[in-house]
Structure formats: C-alpha cells, structure tokens
C-alpha cells in the first residue's frame, strides 16, 4: 500500500467521524440540551419531559449520527418516533387518553361556572396571535405559537404538527418550560391585578358532592358537545373523554391503570425524545424558533391575566364572590397553577382554601385550551 493510499484510507475514516463537521451551531445546541438536562435533574423542573427532551437535543446535534434522517428511504430511529408519533398526531392523543384516565372532573362538575375562567384564560392565545403576526410570522405559525399560552402540551403539539411543523420543537419546548415555571411567572401578575380586599375573598371550603353517575355522564356530555361544536379537535378530546370514562366507570381498572401508568410513561419517553431530536441546529437557531420563547412567556402572562379578569367580570354577576386568585388556574397547568392559587390564597387569608375551586378552573382550562385550538384549526379547514 502506497503512502497516498494510506492517507486516503485515513481521510476516509476520518470523514465517517463527526469531528470534521462540528461547528459553533451544534455546540450551542449541546449547551441548550445540557441546560435542559440541568433543569430536569438538578432543579427537577418537569423532569419527565425535560430530561428526554434535553437528551434528545444533545444526542441529535452530533454530526453524522444516523438518528433523525433517512437511510435508503427508511426513517432512522428518532425520525421514526417523530414521523409516526408526532407528525401523525398519535402521541398527543395517547397522552390525552392517559390524562383522562388520571383526571377527576368532580371539582368542575360541582361548580361548572369555572368553565368560564378556563375560557377567559385563552385570551393570551388570541392576543399573542396578533403580536406574532406583527413580528412577521404567517397566520398558521401565529396560531401554533398562540396556543402555547393554554399551557397544554399535547394540544400545542397537535396544533403545531398540523399548522407549522417546522416550529414544533420550539413551541413544545416553550410550552413545557413555561408550564414548569408557573410558580415563578404567575404570582407577580396575580399580585398586580388584584386588590388586597379581593385576595381575601373567602370561598366555601367544600364543594357539593358529585355522584358517580354524574362523573360517568360528564365525558359523554362533554365529548358530545365538543364533537358538535368543535369537531376539528375531537381526536384529542375524544381520547381525553374516553380515558375519563374508563376511570369513572370503574369497570376496567386494569385498562385505566395501564392508560394512566405504563402507557403514559412509554408515550412520554417517545414524545420527549422526538421533540428533542427535532431541534437540530440548522432549524432551531434562526429568528422564528428563538422568538417563540419570548412570545411564549408573553402568552402565558396574558393568559394568566385573562383568567383573573374573567373572575373579576364574573363577580359583577354572582352572589357568592369568587376569589380572583384562582383566575390564574384557568391556564391548565395541572397541578402547579391550583397550588399557586392555594398558597397565595392562604397567604392573605389563613382560612381560605382555594385548591378545589382552583382545580375546577384548571379543569375548565383543560377543556378551554383544546376548544381554542379547535377554533384556530377551523380557520384553516
């Protein structure tokens, strides 16, 4: 073997490594991936999602790795999860199935007017839509960014995969990151928008009892109404209500346990890895995905404000006043948002237990967010 042949062989071997393709962009993405791993492991911010997302970002941004592309027409591992789980919108629907199997709608059924707080908290979705268009996004992109404020990860993924898949990684990351930061983002807004007297409004310590029959009827009623009014979002809501029906019927405990347990865990792993893997440097490090983070924060803030404002308007018409501190829970960040309401309610009135009322508002938001998504989807049907 001559020296030239040897050098060619060495050069060819070197080109199969990733070293020669490393640039500043992939290094930035490594840092971003490691940052999310730090948030998940050290700060324990939404670790179930941020850990697989962070690792997916870290892994896929090594050059020449056969992870997120196609080999001879066949999707590689993470591309397979992404294409058939996210783009085909299977994973968000399965997550909603699991969530339905874990959710108790009793606080909402006992006090259905909390649904209006969930509706009012979608204000940020539509305000951010406008701001996003002003920044040069298209209508479809604006709709997918706006839904971040609903604090509903599966709905964000569902809508973004339909309307603006190139923003999927940024939107999903923004949604889950800000959901984890609800205890940081919401309290200042709750303080600014409420008076001392309003924060001390005492609400009933207990809600009316809800029968098992009502809990069984709820998914049927809710599913039927949503199917008639906003059919575009039925893949999500249908699964949500099916999971809830399984739980409330009590006759399929194994299915319920599987849906809310191992199935959710498996789907969450694939979701996190797929979303993280879609954050490749060339796509993520550009104007629009990075602006999504700023817009997402604004969106959350306005949604929180929308929920609080809705409570204030409702108080003009109701006899039993509602404490506006539960307005933040219209953003469906279960269970952090109701916890924030509870903690801050107790701070101003040590006899004020707002948790169950806030849960009702939060559950209202869990219906309001898909309803808003359905309204946005209908724009493009």
């Amino acid at each position: 073997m001559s020296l030239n042949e040897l050098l060619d062989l060495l050069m060819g071997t070197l080109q199969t490594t990733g070293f020669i393709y490393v640039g500043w962009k992939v290094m930035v993405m490594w840092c971003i991936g490691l940052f999310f791993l730090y948030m998940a492991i050290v700060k324990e911010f939404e670790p179930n999602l941020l850990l697989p997302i962070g690792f997916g970002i870290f892994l896929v941004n090594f050059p020449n790795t056969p992870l997120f592309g196609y080999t001879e027409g066949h999707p590689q591992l993470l591309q397979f999860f992404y294409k058939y789980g996210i783009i085909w919108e299977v994973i968000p629907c399965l997550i909603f199935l699991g969530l339905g199997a874990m959710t108790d709608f009793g606080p909402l059924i006992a006090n259905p007017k909390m649904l209006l707080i969930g509706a009012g908290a979608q204000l940020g979705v539509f305000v951010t839509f406008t701001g996003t268009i002003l920044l040069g996004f298209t209508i479809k992109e604006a709709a997918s960014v706006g839904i971040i404020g609903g604090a509903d990860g599966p709905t964000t993924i569902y809508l973004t995969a339909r309307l603006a898949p190139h923003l999927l990684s940024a939107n999903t990351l923004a949604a889950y990151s800000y959901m984890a930061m609800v205890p940081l983002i919401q309290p200042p807004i709750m303080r600014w928008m409420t008076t001392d007297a309003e924060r001390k409004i005492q609400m009933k310590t207990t809600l009316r009892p809800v029968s098992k029959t009502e809990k069984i009827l709820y998914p049927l009623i809710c599913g039927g109404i949503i199917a008639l009014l906003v059919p575009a979002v039925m893949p999500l809501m249908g699964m949500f209500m099916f999971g809830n029906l399984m739980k409330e019927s009590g006759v399929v405990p194994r299915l319920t346990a599987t849906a809310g347990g191992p199935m959710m865990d498996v789907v969450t792993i694939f979701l996190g890895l797929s979303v993280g893997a879609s954050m490749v440097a060339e796509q993520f490090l550009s104007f629009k995905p990075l602006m999504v983070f700023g817009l997402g924060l604004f969106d959350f803030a306005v949604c929180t404000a929308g929920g609080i404002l809705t409570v204030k308007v409702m108080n003009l018409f109701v006899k039993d006043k509602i404490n506006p501190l539960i307005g933040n829970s219209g953003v469906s960040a279960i269970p952090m948002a109701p916890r924030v309401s509870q903690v801050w309610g107790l701070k101003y009135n040590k006899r004020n237990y707002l948790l169950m009322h806030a849960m009702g508002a939060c559950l209202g938001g869990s219906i309001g967010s898909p309803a808003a998504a359905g309204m946005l989807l209908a724009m493009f049907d």
Partner: protein
Amino acid sequence: MSLFLIVIGTVLALAVLGITLLQASPEAPKEAVTNPPGAQPGGPTSAEAVKGPVDSALVIPKGPQWMGAPIMPGGSPLQGEPTRQNYELNLPYNQVLAWYKDALKRYPDARYRDWKEEMYIEDQGGSKWHAIIISKTGGPKTTVTLVKDNWTWIWATLIIRFIGVFVVLLVLWLGLNIAGFIMQRFIKEEKAGAKA
C-alpha cells in the same frame, strides 16, 4: 427570585440572539429548507427536508402579479383601491379558475373555498395577498378580485373565535347544569323513597 431572573435573562438572551441572527443573515429566502446534521455533505444518510412557509411570489409563473398574487393576462382593470384590485376578463368562470389553479399549483398554502357565488382562494401562508375571488357570473365575463392582507380580517376572525370559545364552554356549562339538576332530583327522590 434569582432563578426567576435567570429565566428572564435566558429568554431575553435567546430573543437577542434571534434578532441578531435575523439581521446578520442576508435577504433570508422565504423558503427555509434544512437538513439534520446527519445529512451533511459527505454524511452517510439522506434526510427529508423540513420546509417552512413559502412566498407565492417565488413559485408562481413569471408574469404580472400583485402582492405576489398572479394576474391573469388579458383582463381589464376596474376601479380599485390600495387594498383591492379588480379585473374583468372576457372568459367564462371555468377557464379563469383553471388558469389560477395552474398558476398556484406550486403554492401549497392556497386554500380553495367553493362558495355559491364565487370561488374564494385564500392564502394561508406567508404571502402579502389575502384572497383571490373569482366571481361565478355564469356568463362570458368573469370578475377577479385580489385582496391584500388586512388587519380587519385578522381582528374580526380572532374576536369571533375568542367569543366562540366562550360559547362552547357556555353550552357545556348549560349541559352540566341540566345534568346536575336532573341527577340531584333523582337522588332526592330515591332518598325520599328509601325513607318511606
């Protein structure tokens, strides 16, 4: 509090980085086609490109256009406004529609709404036009109206849809109240029956 400041600082830093990238990149093309790192030149794999929104001006056939919307040749311009342009063509509706479908065949964000009196071609992408309206006169002449993107449509549709969310949840509230009322009546009657 310090963590809150770190988070806000990170968000602002990302936003500044985004703006810097926007200003640094030359006349960014409307079509963004990217490949994952594994598909770099010399890499062992090929990858499916992920496309962003496209400006129609880049994909329609060369010829007269308004805000990126194609203008069918041979039309007589009628009185227009800065936000609307009207043209009259001496062709039946079907031929005009066929021409526009052909002109827009490479534009993926055109949505065709076949209404009773007109064909409404709506832009759902990144172009500056909002709609192309082709009237169904049924005669030898056809009017084509080109409409520019406008805030009136955006505000109106957003307000209607926000109210729509309230309507959906109000209907659900009504349904739950009725179901709750009926259930509570049944429970009271059962308890009364059991006592008797």
